[in-house]
Each structure stands twice: as C-alpha cells, then as structure tokens.
C-alpha cells in the first residue's frame, strides 16, 4: 500500500499537469477574445439573440424569491420571442463559490446580461464585473452598483417588500374574525424581515388591538417545520396567516387543511391553495429586466439601481378570484396603497 500511494499521487499529478498544459494551450487564445467578443458583436448583429444568464441560490420552482425572477424572465421571453431572448440558468447554487464560478463562466461565454439573484453573490459579482466591462451584471437584493469601485456595468435591484407586506397586513386585519394573525418567517433577516415588519405595521395601523404572532423556522427550506408553525399559529387562534421564502408551501398546505386564509409574497401562490390564498404580493421583475436589456442595447451596461414598489408597478397585489374579499377590506387596502404611493403612509414603523 505504501508503495502504491506515491504511484497514485504521481499519476494524478502527471494527469493534472497534462490537463493543465493541454488546457493552457487551447484556453489561452480562446479566453482572450471571449472577453472582447460581446463588445464587438452586440451592436453589430441585432439578429443575434440577447443572452441572459440567471444564477440563484434556490430552485427556480421555489414558488418564492427564485421563481419570481424566473417567471419575469419567461414573461419577457414570451414577449420578445424565443428567438430573440435566450435564457440559461443555474439554480440551487447555494454555495457562493460555485455561483461565482457560474457567473464568471457565463460572462466568458459571451452572455449579455448576468443576473446574480442573491445578495451573498455581491463580492464575487464585483470581481467578475471588473474583468468583463462590456457585459452587464445585475444583482439583488442590493442597492450598490459598485460605482465607488469604479464599475459601470452593474445593475442592482431590490423589492420594497414591506409595501405589499403593509397592504397584506391591512387586508388581513380587516378580514380576521379572531383578531389574531400568524406569520411564518424563515430567518429573521433581509427581505423576509422587511415583509414581516411591513405586515405587522399594516395590521396594527388598521386594527390597533390586533395580535400579530410571529415565528421563525430558522431556515429557508424547512417545509415541515413551517407547516407545524402554521398549525401552531392556528391553534393559538390565528385565522389568517402569511409568511415568506420557499418553506411556506408547507404552511400554505397547513392553512388549506385547517381552512385558514393565507396571504403570500414574492410569487403568486394561489394555485397551491385556491380556496385559501386571498392575495399575494407578486414581485414583477419584467419591467426591470426589459429596462436593463434596453439600456444594455443602448450601450449603458449598468449603474442603475431598481426598487420594485407599488408606485412603479413592480409590486403587484394579486387577488385570488376564488376567495371573496369584503368590499370594505378592499377599500381599506386601496386607500393604503394610495397612501404608500403618495408617501403619506410609511410601511415601516
């Protein structure tokens, strides 16, 4: 065995060295023009499809954050025609280093716009963006376009999740019979926290004596615990629930079984429980995507930060036709929406 090991090691080193040498020979010329290629081609050949790559930490079928962007891309593709917009994606890239590799790889393959759909990708994205000045990069949740680092090719985007949270809170408070609402949160941070804070603010502004119970599962994907959290809220008297992240499908299932109502966020969740989901705050990225594509085609590769809000139509409250919303609740929600749009209501306390 002892003799075998060095042999094994040697063989491998040799194989690696060979691969490295072989690779270097073919790769050196191949990589250099790759960085230049999009610059030369993009304006010259409009017949080429616009190529978007999409890297995200969760699955594209998460019915939440990941799916909201995927649906947006699909919608833009349907509008532009499949021949004109090419979409490639790498999902479940939970490990940041893998995502970084994917981002760099897509960039060197000449994709025009690379969407890094996770804040944790930021550092890696800036590193890559430096090397591909003619490629557009976008990341969110973020507001930093890297301008202070001298970058001109990074878009940033975020969603003012608290706004729809507020509206959902208003509706929930108006519709609750028991006066108790339940929130199934993932990890107490970022987008989820904004949404939940907005929901609480909206509910208590509508009915000061309403009780909003909040629990977190400590994970984005613990579907079983999210379901039990929903059951617990219902047992504690809540008749209306909400929550965020991909884990909520468990909570929605529980709400459906117990006849509780549900308010969603991020992606439209009414298909999962048509008799329970009252309304969903949908993140509609289509306008953002289209604007980034237009800017890129006009030669502006980044530098703009987008925020989805109710006012700019990026956030939509999508009512589920299957659940009746009382007229006065709808009116209160519309009033709150107007208030948020004109700035007279602050969705965060």
């Amino acid at each position: 065995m002892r003799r075998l090991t060095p042999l094994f090691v040697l063989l491998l080193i040799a194989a690696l060295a060979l691969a490295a040498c072989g690779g270097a020979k073919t790769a050196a010329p191949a990589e250099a023009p790759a960085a230049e290629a999009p610059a030369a081609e993009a304006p010259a050949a409009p017949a080429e499809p616009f190529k978007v790559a999409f890297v995200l930490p969760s699955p594209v079928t998460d019915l939440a954050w990941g799916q909201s962007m995927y649906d947006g891309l699909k919608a833009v593709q349907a509008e532009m025609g499949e021949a004109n917009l090419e979409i490639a994606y790498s999902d479940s890239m939970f490990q940041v280093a893998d995502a970084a590799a994917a981002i760099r790889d897509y960039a060197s393959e000449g994709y025009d716009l690379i969407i890094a759909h996770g804040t944790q990708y930021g550092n890696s994205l800036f590193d890559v963006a430096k090397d591909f000045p003619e490629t557009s990069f976008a990341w969110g949740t973020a507001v930093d376009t890297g301008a202070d680092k001298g970058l001109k090719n990074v878009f940033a985007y975020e969603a003012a999740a608290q706004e729809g949270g507020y509206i959902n809170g208003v509706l929930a408070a108006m519709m609750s019979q028991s006066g108790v609402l339940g929130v199934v949160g993932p990890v107490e941070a970022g987008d989820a926290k904004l949404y939940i804070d907005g929901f609480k603010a909206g509910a208590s502004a509508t009915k000061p004596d309403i009780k909003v119970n909040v629990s977190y599962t400590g994970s984005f994907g613990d579907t079983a615990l999210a379901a039990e959290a929903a059951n617990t809220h219902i047992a504690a008297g809540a008749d209306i629930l909400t929550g965020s992240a991909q884990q909520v499908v468990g909570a929605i299932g529980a709400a459906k079984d117990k006849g509780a109502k549900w308010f969603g966020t991020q992606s439209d969740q009414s298909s999962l429980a048509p008799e329970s989901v009252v309304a969903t705050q949908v993140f509609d990225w289509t306008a953002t995507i289209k604007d980034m594509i237009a800017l890129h085609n006009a030669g502006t590769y980044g530098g703009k930060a987008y925020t989805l809000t109710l006012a700019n139509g990026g956030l939509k409250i999508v009512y589920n036709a299957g659940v009746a919303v009382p007229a006065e609740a709808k009116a209160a929600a519309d009033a709150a929406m107007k208030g948020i749009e004109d700035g007279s209501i602050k969705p965060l306390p």
Partner: protein
Amino acid sequence: MSNATGRSSSSKRLGGDRLFDALLPAIATLIGLLFGAILLLVLGVNPITAYGSLFQGAFGTVSGITQTLTKATALLLVALGICIAFRGGVINIGGEGQIIVGAIASTAVALALPNLPGMLLIPLTLLAGALAGALWGGIAGVLKARFAVNEILSTVMLNAIALQLMNFLLRGPMLDPEQAAAGTNVPQSATLPDQVWLLRLVPRTLLHTGLILAIILAVLVYIFLWRTTVGYRIRAVGLNPSAARYAGIPVRRYMALAMILSGAFAGLAGAVEVTGVHHRMIEGLSGGYGFSGIVAALFGKLHPLGAIPASAIFGGLLVGADKMQRSVQVPNSLVVAVNGLVVLFVVASDYFVKRRARRRVADVPPAAMPPLAAAVAAESQG
C-alpha cells in the same frame, strides 16, 4: 508479520494488479457516469457533449483548474481532519458546523484587529478559526469520552446549532454596518481588512495561497499520524480499541483528541474560505464541504497524502458537473444525482482492492479485519 508472500510471488503480475487497483476508482467513476448518461439520454441530452464539458470544465481550462483547486483546498482541509478522526475511530459528520464556527471566529478576530499587519493578523485569524473548530469538535469529543454520547448524534445536532448561531450573529452582533444602515439587513458581516486576504495564486481567479497551506498540512498530518507517538496511539485506538486499552493507552482521551483535531481542520477550512475566497462571513459558506470532505478523505483511503489527489479529483467532479449543468442546461439536481452515483460506485469498487490486498496479506484473518483496519494494517506492514 510481513507481506513477503505477496512480494515474492510474481512481482510483474503484482505491478499490474496495483496499477489496476489505482485505476479502479477511475473505472468506477466511469461506471457512475455511464448510469448518469442514461439519465441524460432520457432528458434528450447527448451524454458525450455533456461529459466533454464536464471534463473540460474541471481540468481543461486555466479557469476550470483554478476552480477545481480552490474547491480542493477546502475539501482537503476538511478531509485531513476526517483522516485523523476516522483513523482514531470516531465518525465526524460535524464538519459543516465546525466550518461555520471556524469562519465566525476568524471573521470576528480579523474585524476586531483591523490595524494589525497582515503578517500577524493572518496567522491569528487562521488560528482563531482552527481553535473554534477544535472547540466545536471538542464538544462532541468530550461528550463521547466523558458521557458516552455518540458522536454521530452530537455532530448532527451541533451542525444545526452552529447554523442557528450563525443566523443569530449575522443578523445582529456581526451584521455588516452597511447592511444595517441601508435597512436591507442581508445576513453577512462587514468586509475583512484587506491585509488579511490571502494572496491569489492566479490573478482574476479565486485560487489562493490556502492551497499551499493545505498541502503542507497534509504532509504534516502524515508525519503526525505515522511518525509520532501521539499519532500512532490515535491510530491504535481506531484500529482496535480493546487492544489499545490493553496496551495502556487512555482510549477515550485519544478519541476526544482525534475529534478535537478533526474539528480544528474543519474550522481552519472555514477560516481559509473566509480569508481566501469570500473576505467576509456569509451564509452558504460551508455549503456541503463538511460532507464532501468525508467523501474526499475516503476516496484518498483515509491517507493524508492520498487526500491531496482525491480532493483535486472530487473537487474537479463537482466543478465539472456544474459546468456541464451550464453548458447543456440540465437541472442542477441531475448533477447531484450523478455525483451520488459516482460516490456509490467508487466506494463499492474498493471491494476489489481489498480482496486483492487480503490475498496478498494472507496471514491476516480477513473476517477479523474491518476494511479500514485492513487498509491500515496492509499499509503499516508494507
């Protein structure tokens, strides 16, 4: 005992045998990929194109090789710890948690001492990561030694605890002040002072000096396990606890020690990821290295030097599989499934190596020797 029987028989045939042994994992990998090819065909993807891009992605370009080696760095560090633990007879599946606490501690130290020169701050930061990992592994080790709490149970639980600890710290005490100010509250720490960033070996890639550190440590771990008394005792405990006890070795204490050292390496991996790759504490940093490090260690036959190529190959498989996902646009889950198959076939292929080893070492009764022990025995006699 000797393996003279083996050596004196036909040395030519034996050489061929050993070459076959060495190639066996590769053959098994191919079989795993062959099954994956069936899945690819079902999805309407040409497997040759797919696997071409896998190999190209892992080993065929400079950027691919640097990615592979970056991944191999973390895998190797974890795998070294796994070598010590498994050789010492403790099963450490708490790598994930140990990586996380290592990353937390090193981030805290680097952020607390922003004015220290890199010469001091880098060792201090890495040491902090290793110590935190040692502590986290040590909890499992002491629980086992002192209270007979099985380490599989405690490490599974400690993984979950470390994850929640990270969630807690990253949304409060360690949250990036910029994130707090912007109100976005994305769970990550502030960026580390740049004198603590490990040098990048190849510009514009993530490959950093941690790789060199990991290789040096692999040699040191080899020397430690095979050339020092403490290392010998750890192996003795793992090989046969009752015999070790009979020989006067405090078995439980050495099991705890193996766990502590194992945790230290995983913690160091966390620190190296922070200082070499991310430059901050971030969620998704451990991302499976705690488990894939076990696979890498066992692919390397639980030998610190074997772990070096094993980490590179397994890292390459992971990197190449991601590349394949991108170039033929299959769901990432296919890649995960194929990796699982490769692991299964490679680990099963070991059977043929062991059978040959047993034939060579005919005077060791095989039934009394678990595979691990057989491998160790064959090696120490060789």
